[in-house]
């Protein structure tokens, strides 16, 4: 039985970890939740973002937070090019093709990084890596607190983009009725690629906020991909606020599950909740608002 005095620190830690999960899931909810592209390369592309942040730090001494100005735009361009040049062309509009293409991309990207970067685990050392923020008796790692607010800001920005801009309206139109969207003059290929690019740019943001408290190696995406899919379905397909909420819930459940059931068994809590949501609220927590 755990010491009750650590429940609050554990919940707070769960919230900050959950925010990191939410950051990874935000991009996926756009790609998978809105456009229904099952992107198996999401974890591999997160890894690409993490390597970009790492090398900007190692080669040019750029702080990971300064890299926010570089990595997300570059990741956006990469995502746009991938969708326009590979995924869209190879998929021929069929979901099963997309699934296989993204799976293939994941394998290619991971093996290329294994070849170029080797399997070394790499970490950035920043002046704030070991800094903590004391809150309600808990020492919260500063990078995770920054990531928490970063996730809130990113979710808010995406929500604004989807509700207040022409691009957001075009993406939503495309998600609802592809043919109709085409008939009213929306360039489907372009909007698809923009959406994919935005989703991958979110991974760029996640990479910049994640690396100060985590590491990168060619397999790093594996630990996040299943969690990200779970969060998207739990929060409601296509709902950014749902993804944020889902991430935070998963973080807290994981923390408390680990505390009461042990770290190995604690993961079960995540999937129990996932199954319960699918049974009792198949649209996810905020799915109807998507």
């Amino acid at each position: 039985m755990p010491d009750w005095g650590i429940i609050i620190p554990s919940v707070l830690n769960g919230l900050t970890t959950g925010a990191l999960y939410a950051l990874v899931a935000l991009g996926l909810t756009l790609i998978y939740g809105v456009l229904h592209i099952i992107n198996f390369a999401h974890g591999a592309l997160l890894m690409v973002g993490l390597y970009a942040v790492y090398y900007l730090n190692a080669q040019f001494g750029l702080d990971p937070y300064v890299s926010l100005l570089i990595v997300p735009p570059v990741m956006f361009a990469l995502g746009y090019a991938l969708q326009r040049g590979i995924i869209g062309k190879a998929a021929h509009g069929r979901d099963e093709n997309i699934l296989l293409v993204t799976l293939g991309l994941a394998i290619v990207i991971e093996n290329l990084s294994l070849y170029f970067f080797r399997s070394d685990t790499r970490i950035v050392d920043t002046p704030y890596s070991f800094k903590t923020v004391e809150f309600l008796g808990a020492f919260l790692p500063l990078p995770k607190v920054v990531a928490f607010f970063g996730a809130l800001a990113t979710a808010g920005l995406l929500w604004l983009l989807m509700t207040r801009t022409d691009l957001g309206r075009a993406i939503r139109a495309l998600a609802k009725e592809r043919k109709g969207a085409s008939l009213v003059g929306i360039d489907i290929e372009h909007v698809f690629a923009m959406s994919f690019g935005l989703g991958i740019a979110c991974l760029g943001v996640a990479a910049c906020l994640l690396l100060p408290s985590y590491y990168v190696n060619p397999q790093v995406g594996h630990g996040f991909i299943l969690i990200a899919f779970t969060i998207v379905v739990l929060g409601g397909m296509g709902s950014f606020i749902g993804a944020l909420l889902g991430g935070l819930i998963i973080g807290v459940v994981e923390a408390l599950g680990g505390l009461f059931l042990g770290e190995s068994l604690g993961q079960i809590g995540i999937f129990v909740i996932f199954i319960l949501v699918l049974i009792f609220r198949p649209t996810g927590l905020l799915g109807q608002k998507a």
Partner: protein
Amino acid sequence: MTGNKTNGGFSRRDMLATGAAAIGVSAIGFPAVLRAQPAAVKVGLIHPVTGFIAFSGNQCRQGALMAIEDINNAGGIKSLGGAKLEGLLGDSQGKPDIGASEADRLVEAGVNGIVAGYASSITLATSQEAAKSNTPHVVDVGVSDKIVNRGLKNTFRFGPGYGKIAKFAVDNLDTINKAAGSPAKTAMIIHEESLFGTGTAKLLSKELPTKGIEVIDVIKHPNPMRDFTNIVLQIKAKKPDLIIPANYYNEYVLLARTIRQQKVEAKGIYSVLGGAASNYKFVKEFPEAAEQIMDCNHWFDPTSQLALERKKAAEAKGLYYTYEVFLAYNAVSFLADAIERAGSVDKDAVIAAMASSTWDKHGMPYGPTKMMNGQNDGAQPVNTQVLKGVIQVIFPKKFASADPVFPRTV
């Protein structure tokens, strides 16, 4: 008048003679050339070069390939006419079932011996698969004692198993603790959930109380583990005198960072086979988190010129000289020595040569090799401690380069 008929100045007899000579050369001469280049000795190398323990798997592979290169540069297997070693590579992806299928594939490809497989669970599978064809199998790192306790005639481990390591770790900890006035009375063990971590934790839980150190909690975690804050909060609440981690590299790094981040005040961090505590990479990247951590782990003999030369050669290739590198190097060298003495790649002959090995060119603190039911009896770990950013050997005294600092002063 009779005479040899000529054809353009070249008699039929000449032609016959030339043809016979050509046939003779092709029948005798070319095989003579082939005999000068004996068939390569194929060595299967199975490591987890992808998956969650890929860093260690790649280190093992690099160590094994270095050994092959050195042996070939030194003239190959001389008793086989200078036969070169050829490494056939396999990737277990960190999974025992894939390790077993890789062993099967390499046996089908005709390997003369296998060196595998870093993790205990994978090594159990590869050695068992190799045993079906009586293929000689040398364990590079896997520490579970089950690997050599199953009576497999083909399986040999050059390094120590965790039974010996745990005993050594506990005995030395007792000595260090008593020398400091016995400040450590409680401990918490944090271990990864596979065979290596679970087995080590079980042995330590049994042995530590016999030395007056109560194990107040044992926490198991999966691989990969994304966040250690929860575990460290539990450590903080229970306030053990000693924190004893037994996990792989990535998890060890995250755990050590979180311990420092959460300002945990323990009298010591004493790893047993800690994935990063005796790792130059970890110490270089996180000197503050690594400072004064003690470890009981595989280590080379720091007084051996041979070991230091190999370390230098590995570093010249851009490698960190971690235990994976020198253990895999020695596993291949041990196998090559057995083939050399057997003068054959006959499986029974190689296995017999390994069983009777007295090989001592390993640069390890083991003494000459002496196999007892597949286990090198002289193999032992050493205790290291990170002191002012340098990994120092603190036990056994014979190999020590510094005195232990305990309790921690940082």
